[in-house]
């Protein structure tokens, strides 16, 4: 499975976490692929940090530089959507108005610590709105490929990268498995199609428990 397929598979599984009537915030990277897999019969409002609620799909034509998501790419506005300023956008986020926030991750620890803002000396994207989303969202789902390109596991006992927020991730979806973090304990909930338990055990850098249905 190449990286592109892995990303699509993760996004497809993540889409199943979104229910009717939800307010959803999507990070950049893999999370931005999630809407492609969403059941179109659901009423869902996507929110973004720059100041928009009710984002619709990328416009087919006449893209407008002043109507964009938090990554700066053009979007549209659904009926009932609204524009507001960034302070109001983050007010919603911190206040807990976002039902689920789906973020890309560099590492997640068994306790739910999220690292996704910096690789010292290599990549400096900056933290953006991730800290507030991790703080305020009712449910925080981290998406990432299961391992680095060199095979290093991204699910770890303790993050080696600088942490964005401690104890915030509730669910991890990778190309191999779905984990929950419940009461500070990492739990394997599902194997992704084609993955096996020994493979997941080998490629995960932290201890986890199993739900009964997984074997």
């Amino acid at each position, binding site marked *: 499975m190449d990286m592109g397929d892995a990303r699509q598979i993760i996004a497809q599984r993540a889409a199943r976490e979104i229910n009717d009537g939800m307010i959803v915030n999507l990070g950049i990277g893999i999370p931005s692929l999630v809407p492609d897999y969403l059941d179109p019969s659901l*009423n869902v409002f996507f929110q973004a940090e720059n100041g928009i609620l009710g984002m619709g799909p990328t416009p087919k034509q006449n893209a407008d530089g002043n109507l964009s998501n938090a990554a700066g790419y053009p979007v549209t506005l659904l009926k009932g959507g609204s524009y507001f300023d960034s302070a109001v956008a983050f007010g919603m986020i911190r206040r807990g108005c976002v039902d689920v926030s789906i973020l890309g991750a560099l590492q997640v620890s068994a306790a739910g610590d999220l690292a996704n803002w910096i690789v010292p000396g290599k990549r400096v994207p900056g933290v953006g709105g991730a800290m507030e989303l991790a703080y305020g969202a009712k449910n925080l789902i981290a998406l990432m490929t299961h391992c680095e390109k060199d095979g290093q596991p991204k699910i770890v006992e303790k993050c080696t990268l600088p942490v964005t927020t401690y104890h915030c991730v509730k669910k991890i979806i990778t190309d191999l498995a779905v984990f929950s973090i419940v009461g500070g304990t990492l739990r394997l909930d599902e194997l992704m199609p084609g993955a096996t338990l020994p493979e997941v055990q080998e490629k995960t850098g932290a201890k986890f428990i199993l739900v009964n249905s997984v074997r």
Partner: protein
Amino acid sequence: MPSFNKVTDLSTIRPLFFDGMTLLFGGFGGVGSPPGLVDCLIESGVKNVHLVGNDAGFPWIGMGKFICLERATSLIASHIGSNPIAGELMNQGKLQVEFSPQGILVERIRSGGVGLNGFLTEIGMGTKLEYNKPRVKIGEKEFMYEAPITGDVSIVYAKKADTFGNLVFDKTARNTNPYVAMAGKITIVEADEIVEMGELNPEEIIVPGIYVKHIVPSKGYNWKWIWEMPDKSSRNAPPAK
């Protein structure tokens, strides 16, 4: 979009009020206070309510109508001067009043509504209105800490709402309503007009519907303003209803 439709009627709202709740209310001298929701609150029979709002209204206007029934235990407000009965209840020990500078009060409600943990200010330091609020030293400078305020229930008056709860206000009836809407665990809106999603200009929406739980249609103000009364003393003006 049925899952985003929040329009209901007062029979759904009445049981949401409960004894001992903290109730935030929008409005400034009654202007922008939701008349139907105040009456619904009165009819609900709840007591021992902790109120937070700009002021005590007038005895027959806004939250003043409820305060006069002696079913509020406490009130955080910037003034009660327009409601002499509130002043009497305070002096009799029946209503505990905490005065706050007006702009500080709305910022405290905002701080709660946007999920922050309060703010620092110099305003009110060294005066009676400092109460026992903590002082905080940052570097060499000392400030007063103002805690965020949130409510169990917030009641708000809008000019227009769409069915999702996006709100537009009317002139100076906006006042504290946007922040009261943000700071309630359950925010209930009374709106003069309710329209479908997509009918409000998304640029002019003041409160996005994400904050709103329930919307009820309004019949408008059911009181006379003090400048409409033949006798302009708020002491003697008779209830309008």
